[in-house]
């Protein structure tokens, strides 16, 4: 797999859709830098030779106003730089927003390994298996310190921050085995928190997913459903509950009206915050009666719960967006 040392690559393999775009900007920057550097060095060298102390070169010059020159060498770089800024910003903006329908994979960074969950419940530690030709969205969080998920061949990385979800998305283009690194210093074995990304043809990926991982596996959403009962979430949020708690059917991805005005989009981050610190964003019309789960549910289980809540959205009834009635809940 590894190219022989003699070939001395200067860029890593391009294995995602964004890689050629990043490389194009990179080579553009290299070209501009080379022109500026070599041009400047040529001019300096000429001056150094021509006006060396022993030379008899003519040194009289017209008295000149520096302003014109100063404006020239301020404005020209400025134009080039703004062009570079726009180019880089466009590619970055595209690479930051996952397309709808991207395949979600959940990853928790732990000192010092990656705990990866696929939707069907397949779990892997360290490495990552993805299909080629399909957008993949990694939903990342950390159980302890800040990590960073970096796949050089895909030209992408994102910090993995405790307490929040960050996202990387890519479309792998070439089947293969690529290095991945933790790129944010995270302690003693930071350098050993690496692994490989296996980009596979869709059939191969499916086969890999289906290969049972020892015991009969539940999907991530099924695990979430089990936890939903285990943590007694169903006691209030369940369909037959007498407690006045917001229904979770169809919640994911919709705007939720908040107590005190405003809306928040019910994305993964919102769901996470609402489980762990429910007091911070109260749905309009409800009392803040939900207990705090901070420190009681592991990141991995929070992810399973979220996957379960997301699975409830496949039925297209948007309850959360409708203002609920103002009835008082029964005493808890």
């Amino acid at each position: 797999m590894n190219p022989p040392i003699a070939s001395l690559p200067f860029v890593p393999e391009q294995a995602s859709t964004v890689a050629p775009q990043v490389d194009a900007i990179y080579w553009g920057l290299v070209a501009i830098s080379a022109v500026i550097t070599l041009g400047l060095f040529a001019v300096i060298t000429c001056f150094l030779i021509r006006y060396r102390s022993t030379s008899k070169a003519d040194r009289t010059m017209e008295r000149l106003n520096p302003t014109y020159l100063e404006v020239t060498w301020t404005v020209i770089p400025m134009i080039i730089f703004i062009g570079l800024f726009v180019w880089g910003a466009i590619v970055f903006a595209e690479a930051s927003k996952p397309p709808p329908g991207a395949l979600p994979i959940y990853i928790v960074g732990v000192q010092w390994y990656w705990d990866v969950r696929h939707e069907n419940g397949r779990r892997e530690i360290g490495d990552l298996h993805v299909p080629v030709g399909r957008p993949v969205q990694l939903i990342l969080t950390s159980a302890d310190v800040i990590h960073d998920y970096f796949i050089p061949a895909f030209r992408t990385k994102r910090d993995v921050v405790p307490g929040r979800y960050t996202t990387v998305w890519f479309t792998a283009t070439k089947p293969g085995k690529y290095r991945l690194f933790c790129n944010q210093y995270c302690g003693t074995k930071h350098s050993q928190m690496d692994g490989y990304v296996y980009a596979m043809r869709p059939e191969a990926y499916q086969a890999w997913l289906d290969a049972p991982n020892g015991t009969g596996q539940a999907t991530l959403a099924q695990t979430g459903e089990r936890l939903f009962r285990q943590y007694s979430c169903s006691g209030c949020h369940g369909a037959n509950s007498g407690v006045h708690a917001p229904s979770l059917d169809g919640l994911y991805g919709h705007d939720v009206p908040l107590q005190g005005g405003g809306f928040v989009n019910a994305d993964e981050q919102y769901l996470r915050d609402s489980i762990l610190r429910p007091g911070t964003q109260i749905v309009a019309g409800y009392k803040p009666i939900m207990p705090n789960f901070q420190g009681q549910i592991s990141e991995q289980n929070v992810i399973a719960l979220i996957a379960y809540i997301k699975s409830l959205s496949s039925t297209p009834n948007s309850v959360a967006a409708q203002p609920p009635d103002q009835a008082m809940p029964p005493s808890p």
Partner: protein
Amino acid sequence: MNSTSTIIEHAPTGTPPEPHPRKPDYLNDGYGLKSWLTTHDHKRIALLYLICITFFFFVGGWAATMMRLQLLTPQGNLVTSETYNRLFTLHGVMMVWFFLIPAVPTVLGNFLLPLMIGARDVAFPRLNLLSWYIFVFGGLFTMYATISGGVDTGWTFYTPYSTTYANGHVIAMASGIFITGFSSIFTGLNFIVTTHTMRAPGMHWFRLPLFVWSLYATSLILVLATPVIAITLGLIALERFAGVGVFDPKLGGDPLLFQHLFWFYSHPAVYIMILPGMGVVSEMITCFSRKCIFGYKFVAYSSIAIAILGFIVWGHHMFVASQSIYAGLVFSFLSFLVSIPSAIKVFNWTATLYKGRIYFHTPMLYALGFIGLFTIGGLTGLFLATLAVDMHVHGTYFVIAHFHYIMVGGMVMAYLGGLHYWWPKISGRMYNEKLAQFSAAIIFVGFNLTFFPQFILGYLGMPRRYPYYPPQWQVFHVLSTAGASVLAVGYLLPLCYLTWSFFFGRHAPKNPWNASGLEWNETDSPPTRTNFDKVPIVTTKAYNYPYPMTSNE
């Protein structure tokens, strides 16, 4: 007088026969350790700083040497990851806070600011001495943290690692930096007041040497930014010690808050490091091309522009840190903007060479090296400011290479150049010119060999702070380590021949370079205790050199 101090043992009076009895100067103004440790003389304080800073530089350099040796092989046979993590933390902390930030202002700035503006001392001489004591105290604190087990957080102290998870003497090291910060603030304050109130008659603002302008800009940043790092380190200690939730999400804090606070100081701190170096280069380029600087006001104002813009680009360290993409756009744009004043300086230095009379003495070699390396460092900064490219190279060796081109290629070259340029004034002695030119060349070659391969490594994906790496990258690491050993020789040579020349060198004339400026023309080498026999009256602009020869003047 007894001669207890090592400095005094070799005092000029004890040196080989001199043609004339030595005139009184600041070096022989008093003898004994006490006369140095209680001095209020800005020139002596500068020398005290020089000794400490050189020591810290070689401590940091030793850590770098160990790291480069470890990286010679992919599997790293020298130290464990635990030790390696402590080494790069030590290297970063020593180099940033105990060398790069203080070096030019406290050594060259302290020595030259009063001389350049025609003053007898800085505005607050006792405060100046106090800030040296604080610096030493902070340094000792940090050394204690190192010796007693070290810290493995990296110089960036990212939370929640540093507050909750790291073992090691985080609080002790943070305290060392905290204490040293006061030294920075006092020095900055002193320089600002000195520049405002102590200028000689006729030395108005646009007659100031550009080094003074750059020191002034630097002092503004020192005074405004340093309190922020002090507060940040204080909060780290609070969270680590008392469990108050500020940065750790488990305690209800926000880890990103730390990065905002840290870079709000540490990005301006980059300009604290490089701005004085730029001032030094302006002095050397003009002197050794015998020509007035091209576009004086543009160079002067660009220092101020850098100081101001430097405060609003901190977010470019956090493009992939889960900061909002819109914040990323703003910080990316501002980062491109901050490169403009630096570009203006480079172009003006180049234009200064035009139709000058160029001499290739050692300081000029350093100045030319600075321009070359700073240009590469600056341009590769654009790669990092470009959002899409940063997504790939953030946190890799590309970043390492970039900031070493600015810090070592820029700042250290300027510092060494300045030290050679003003050495005759500081020591009253000349060093061996050929040897000095040779070591300047060695440093230039060694530097490029060390750090250029790291750009390639970075784009290939080599992350920072890894003691091990995939074997196919070894060739670049071997080149880099080879370069580092050349570089080490280049740094040890000046240590030897400058020290030697301080005691045994040929006596320097008042103005060996035929330079303009009060420090060269109105004072002896070395200057007397009070700098000037009578207060100079300034009647001409700075850089009163024979060129440019204008045809219609």
